[in-house]
């Protein structure tokens, strides 16, 4: 699946959050969306899936216009949005979460079903009857990915997937991203943690105050002191990490 975002302007109330953002994700590509807190990464993702309605500009997947369509259309077209934080249906069990996700896109078929997801995350199978609200952060992350995969998507929009995760879980998450990328899923990865994004994507966009400040290879971003400071990474010292586990 190819995603093309062209000159999108989005507002929250009166504040002009996205001021003409354009970006593309080619089929099978893992693209990083970098930027500080408040740069507009989440708003961009929400604009892509229609949770925020852009005032101007267009969002197309495989040449088909998605701008202004109701949010459920994006998922049914194969675009899975994984919002940041512990977003699972907390009163439902793990198995019910997966079933609701599957039924939400009934016409999407493919190799991903509950069995295969339990194969990928054996932990989820053990916990299948557990209420999702009681899962650990890492387990909820697995469930989030499982919920997305069971709809057999062609592209994932991952918003801050490493936020609040223990370093060991971040490593695991990295492996999953690599695995999904090998499955030729396209991924747009919004991250504050540039280290994680750098490790798992080839190309990136740097968003600053609602505009694309730079686009190019991750190496270029990493090597430029100016861009590093824009990202809030101290010049060439220890890489910035997520909240450390104590």
């Amino acid at each position, binding site marked *: 699946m190819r995603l093309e975002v062209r000159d999108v302007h989005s507002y929250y109330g009166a504040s002009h959050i996205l001021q003409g953002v354009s970006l593309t994700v080619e089929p099978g590509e893992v693209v990083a969306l970098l930027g500080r807190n408040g740069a507009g990464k989440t708003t961009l993702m929400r604009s892509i899936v229609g949770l925020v309605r852009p005032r101007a500009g267009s969002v197309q997947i495989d040449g088909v216009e998605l701008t202004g369509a109701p949010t459920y259309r994006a*998922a049914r077209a194969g675009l899975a949005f994984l919002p940041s934080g512990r977003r699972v249906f907390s*009163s439902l069990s793990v198995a019910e979460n997966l079933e609701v996700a599957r039924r*939400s896109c009934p016409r999407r078929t493919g190799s991903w079903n509950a069995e295969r997801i339990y194969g990928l995350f054996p932990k989820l199978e053990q916990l299948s009857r557990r209420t999702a609200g009681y899962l650990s952060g890492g387990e909820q992350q697995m469930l989030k990915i499982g919920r997305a995969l069971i709809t057999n998507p062609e592209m994932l929009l991952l918003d801050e997937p490493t936020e609040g995760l223990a370093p060991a879980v971040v490593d695991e998450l990295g492996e999953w991203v690599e695995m999904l990328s090998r499955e030729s899923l396209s991924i747009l990865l919004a991250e504050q943690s540039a280290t994680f994004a750098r490790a798992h994507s080839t190309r990136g966009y740097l968003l600053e105050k609602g505009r694309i400040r730079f686009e190019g290879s991750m190496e270029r971003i990493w090597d430029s002191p100016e861009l590093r400071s824009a990202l809030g990474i101290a010049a060439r010292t220890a890489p910035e990490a997520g909240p450390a586990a104590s």
Partner: protein
Amino acid sequence: MARFLTETIGTLSDAGSLFVVAAGLTLVFGAMRVINLAHGTFYMYGAFVVTTVAGTASGLRFWVAVVVAALVVAVLGAIVQLGVVRFVVGKEPLTQLVATFAVLYILADVALHLWGSGARSVSAPLGVSGTFTLAGAYLPVYDLVIIGTAVLVGLVLWLLLSHTSLGWMIRAAVDDPELLQSGGVNLRRLHLAVFATGALLAALAGAIVTPQISVAPGMDQSIIVSSLLVVVIGGLGSVVGTAFAALIIGIADTVGTLVDPTWASTFMYFAVILVLVVRPWGLFGTPER
């Protein structure tokens, strides 16, 4: 003993119909985050439709009238959802209150034109009219019909919410509507189904109590007050909480009436205040995040 039995059956019957109305209200609030003040309207329309369809005949036609009333009002609910409520989902609570309050008043005027301002009544169909005796107490058979209906509604709702994927979707909408819709669910359609079901439950309660009350304008406003109390005590969005709260309100009302009828409502509201002081989010609700 006889007195105790009479009061108990009466209380259970009152609590039962209150539960059915309030279950609809809490279902709608849970899945849509809308407090629908027009919910009482659906209750009143259910009762009025029964008086029209059942007429004076008191046989099978009464039961047909109950079913017709529930279905007709479910359609009315769908129209209200599409015409008004859909536009206030996700808006300020005050906007929602004003909009649904407006619906209540408009439909009250419509009801005046359709059914007039006088009280109407329906007699209980043969077979469930009259009384039966138990341990020396004379008890209305029809109370058992209401209690049975409430138990049945409770069971069906429980089965729906815990054992069907539609029910899981409704609970998912309670947990995180945005996640549900970005997962591919047409939230508007789900809202329509939930709102029509809520209206159906209110109408069912209104229809089933017709043999025991006089059906008249104003029913809509009095029932919305008590069902809001029930829903708030039970915890907004919780069906189990609604069942318990309906019992509490029923018992408080009965005990209050027995102690001193002139203070009965005060008694009831004290029960409400007491619960809310201890648990502001209701018995089975969850504190706002």
